[in-house]
Structures are given as structure tokens and as C-alpha cells.
């Protein structure tokens, strides 16, 4: 199941998803954290609408997600960051705080640690603006 889930997640973010693999897992329900992320964030991502729609009927348990939490999170949120709406914000972040910050935000939402870093280096007002623009996508 774990391998299958990796293939599913991987196929979401590669340009040529394997139709067969997708179909075999499309009837299972995507529950728990990954399901929420897909429903909340990926529905606007054109490439993921079909996948999210199909996967939402399937079933993937939270137990399975436990080990792959970071991997899933990284892949899912990298996709969010690459959405057109957010690309500008990531580019701004790269210009302001460098590649390291852009990588950290690409692989996840602005974590509490990154928020602290933004506030420490830019001041609260500028950090809030930056975080708002990053989450606007």
C-alpha cells in the first residue's frame, strides 16, 4: 500500500501520470491530512483537479500516511507553490530572503519557525505582508 500511495502521489506531480495506477487507486478514499490538503489546496491546480476528484472516492488510511508525512507534505505543497497565483510570491521571497527560504516555503506552508525568521529579519509588518502574499495563492 505504501508503494502504491507513493506512486499515486508521485504520479500526481509528474507530467505523465500512469493512468493504470491512477485508476486502480481512484476508488479509494483519500482521508486524513492528505485528503484535506488535496481538497483545500489542490482543487485550483489544474493538473490536480482530475486526480483529486478521482482519489477522493478512494481510501487511504492515516496509518499509511504517518511514515510518509514529510514526503507527502513536501510534494503536495511544492505543487501549491508552483501554482500561477503563488509563483510571484515565491519569487519575491527568493529575492528578499534567498533560495533557502524559498525552498523551505516551497516544501510547506510558512511554518512557525519560518514566521519567526521572517519577523526577526524583516520586522513584523513586512513579515506579515510577505506571509499574506505567500498564503494568498
Amino acid at each position, binding site marked *: 500500500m505504501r508503494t502504491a500511495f507513493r506512486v499515486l502521489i508521485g504520479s500526481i506531480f509528474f507530467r505523465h501520470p500512469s493512468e493504470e495506477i491512477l485508476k486502480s487507486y481512484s476508488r479509494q478514499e483519500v482521508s486524513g491530512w492528505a485528503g484535506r490538503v488535496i481538497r483545500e489546496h489542490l482543487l485550483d491546480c489544474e493538473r490536480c483537479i482530475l486526480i483529486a476528484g478521482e482519489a477522493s472516492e478512494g481510501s487511504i488510511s492515516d496509518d499509511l500516511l504517518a511514515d510518509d508525512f514529510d514526503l507527502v507534505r513536501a510534494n503536495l505543497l511544492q505543487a501549491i507553490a508552483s501554482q500561477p*497565483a503563488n509563483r*510571484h*510570491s515565491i519569487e*519575491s*521571497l*527568493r*529575492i*528578499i*530572503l*534567498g*533560495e*533557502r*527560504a524559498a525552498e523551505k516555503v516551497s516544501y510547506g506552508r510558512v511554518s512557525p519557525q519560518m514566521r*519567526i*525568521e*521572517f519577523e*526577526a*529579519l*524583516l*520586522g*513584523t*509588518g*513586512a*513579515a*506579515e*505582508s*510577505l506571509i*499574506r*502574499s505567500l498564503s*494568498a*495563492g
Partner: protein
Amino acid sequence: MTRFPSEAIPRRIIIFAILNLFVGLCFWLVSLIGQVSALQFYFERIGPAVLLLFGVLELSLAVRLIGSYHFDTEMCWAWVLIALSAALRIGGILGIYYLILSQEGRLLAVLISGPLQLVFLGWALALVLRVFARLEYVLRVRPLDWILLALFGAFALWTLSANLFRANTWLLFSDPLLCCVLLEVVLLYRAVSQMKGGLVAACWISYGVAVVLTAVSTVAIAASSYGLTPGSLMPLGYLVLYPAAAAFALGPAFQFEAISAAKRSADVTRSPR
């Protein structure tokens, strides 16, 4: 790869610094063919005005940056201290070049624009280093850095021992203090290198460049003074101070641009696409 940040204020400072350096080098070349008064004119008229301009720019930007942070944060106090350091440098320039002062007055001006401003700058950089350490950036000195620090440390000890019973007591601390600040900017450079580019990193790298150029200038002037290099090269040691002053102004300019860009990013996202 992150592109080199080239926002409006820093770009203007860099262009102006390059132009000024070019003018200075032209005056130096003219002095080599016997027109020494030309170089004197540059160092007495143009040079001080340029140093003053860079100092005022650094001060005004640093003061504006103070308001960007909560007053109880270390970064706020770091910018307060940087502003004080810039103010002292301005005071020193005014005292040395523009005000008619007695010998003691000029000495005081040298003191405040030398060791005293280094104390404030070093204090500010220590606060910034503490912020980066707390943000889990690795503060590590590499072998190449140790060589640079050891060379300048040896120079500082040499000048200290050579002038121990001759020069003004407080001025003796100038080179050892500069050595401490050099260590700080090396650590800061290694920390911000982990950011892999960006305007904030450029801010602290600018301070690093400024301090390194100041150290280079100090060594070059001392080498000429002690006859280790030809006297005709001594003006080059002083000329290095101008890019150093520009780099001091670039620091807050990059930080100011970073904060402005962060504030602008929210506006761009809000605007209809």
C-alpha cells in the same frame, strides 16, 4: 539560481561609488606625472563630501529601518547602534575636514570616527549574529577565514606594540577593535551564505565588504607609512576608504529594499490579475 539583487537605491550607490573611484584613480594618475595638487584637491574637497554623503545616506536609512522592528527586538537595537555608528562617522568627517578644530579636537574627531564607531558597529553586529544563531544558522569560521583573521590579527598586534608608547592611548585600540569586527563579519558572511542570496544577505555581506575594505585600507596606509611599499601607492590605501564607505551605506539600503519588497509583495498579490 537567485539573481543578484539590484534594486533602485543600492544600484545608485554602486554606480556613484564606481564613478567616484574612477575619478579618484584619475586624480591619482595625474599626481604621478607631477600634479600632486590635483590629488590634494580630490582628498580635501571631493573625498570628504563623498564620505559625508555616504555617511548621511547610511544614517538616514538606518534610522528608517529602526521603525520597522519592535523596539524590544535585537534587530531594532542593532539598527539603533548602526545608526549611532554612522552618526559618529559623520561627526568624525565633519571634525576632521570641515570644522576648524585644535589639535586635540581633531584627535577627538579621529577617535569618534575610529575606535568609538567600531565599538558601536561591533556591538550591533554581535546582536545580529545572535539573531542568526537563534534562527539556527551555523556560525563557523573556515580555514581561509582563519588565515585572513590571523594576518590582520598579527598586523594589529604589530601596530599595537610599535605604537604602545607613542600614539594616543585610545587610538591604539583601533586595529584590535577592527580585528574583532572583522571576525564578526566573517561569521556573519558564513551565516548569510546559507541563505543562498537575497537582499537581506546582501545587506550583511555589504557590511562585511565594508569592514574588509577598511582593514585593507588600514594595512595599505600603514605599509606605506613604514616604507614597506612605495609612497606613491599610499593614496590608493586612502582611495579604498571610499568603496568601504559606499559598502557601509549599501548595508541599510539592501535591508530597506528587502522590507519594501516584502510590503510590496502583498500589494501585488492583492491586485487583480
